[in-house]
């Protein structure tokens, strides 16, 4: 349904999309997954970048209870507005290309690229499956990676669906609570990842250690603050049975 709204956008969304270069990718074959890093189990995910391949934001998310309760059309529009503001603020400044080794799903498992126009298709969730298959072959597989892209609730945070980087509630006694995060705080950077959406918050958590500490920059009443979250072993674990990549392990 959400995807249908992108195909036939309302006038406001259409006006926002017109301020971007829109790209639609339905086959991961040949896609550079060293650049396009997101939650590959989602049926729809969005990334915002510039021509220098600087990633501004991600959008999309779900959990075992619902495919759509973590996303909203207002949430997408607000993220788009934030991306446009960020892009405008750096307009004219060209970033040097980041050193990056292109990696396609085919490269991960060592198969030839699918021919152009092939009826075969690599689905997003297969990227995880290919990575885990290669890691198992190399003996580097970490079972904790099955709990990728953790929910904000795993550290005690409930985020606003329409303003995905705004904290709605903090669970008492949670890692977020102990770090001093409060309802109403706006998370700006989570573990080094700039956060404009809930998907960005989750991506910052995705890159966090299995146990240990990481920093969160936030804004409260107009003031910037940095707090430290401490997470214990197993903090990533949650109901992930909805993930196609996990079900196939």
């Amino acid at each position: 349904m959400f995807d249908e709204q992108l195909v036939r956008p309302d006038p406001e969304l259409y006006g926002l999309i017109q301020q971007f270069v829109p790209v639609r990718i339905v086959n991961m074959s040949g896609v550079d997954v060293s650049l396009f890093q997101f939650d590959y189990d989602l049926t729809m995910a969005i990334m915002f970048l510039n021509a220098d391949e600087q990633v501004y934001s991600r959008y999309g998310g779900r959990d075992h209870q619902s495919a759509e309760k973590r996303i909203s059309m207002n949430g997408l529009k607000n993220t788009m507005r934030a991306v446009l503001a960020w892009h405008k603020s750096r307009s004219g400044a060209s970033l040097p290309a980041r050193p990056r080794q292109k990696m396609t799903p085919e490269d991960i498992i060592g198969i030839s690229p699918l021919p152009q126009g092939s009826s075969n298709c690599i689905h997003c969730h297969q990227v995880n499956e290919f990575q885990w298959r290669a890691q198992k072959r190399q003996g580097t597989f970490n079972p904790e990676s099955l709990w990728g892209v953790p929910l904000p609730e795993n550290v005690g945070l409930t985020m606003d669906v329409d303003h995905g980087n705004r904290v709605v509630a903090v669970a008492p006694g949670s890692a977020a609570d102990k770090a001093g995060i409060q309802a109403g705080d706006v998370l700006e950077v989570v573990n080094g990842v700039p956060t404009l959406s809930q998907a960005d918050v989750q991506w910052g958590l995705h890159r966090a250690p299995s146990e240990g500490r990481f920093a969160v920059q936030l804004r409260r009443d107009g003031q910037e603050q940095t707090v430290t979250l401490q997470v214990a072993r197993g903090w990533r674990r949650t109901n992930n049975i909805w993930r196609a990549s996990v079900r196939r392990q």
Partner: protein
Amino acid sequence: MSLVRGGMGLIALSVVLTALVRPTTRADDHERAVAWLNDFEEAKRVARRTGKPIFVVFR
């Protein structure tokens, strides 16, 4: 004659009101059809030329 003129006026008014309050039509949808690209390299070229950021949807 005045009855005929009055009738024509009502018809004209109803046409105008219908145009103002009509629901979204397929033609409107068509006008708002997004010109999606499917090649990221092409998108980067367009983004560089236009100064726009890139919006990538994975389905």
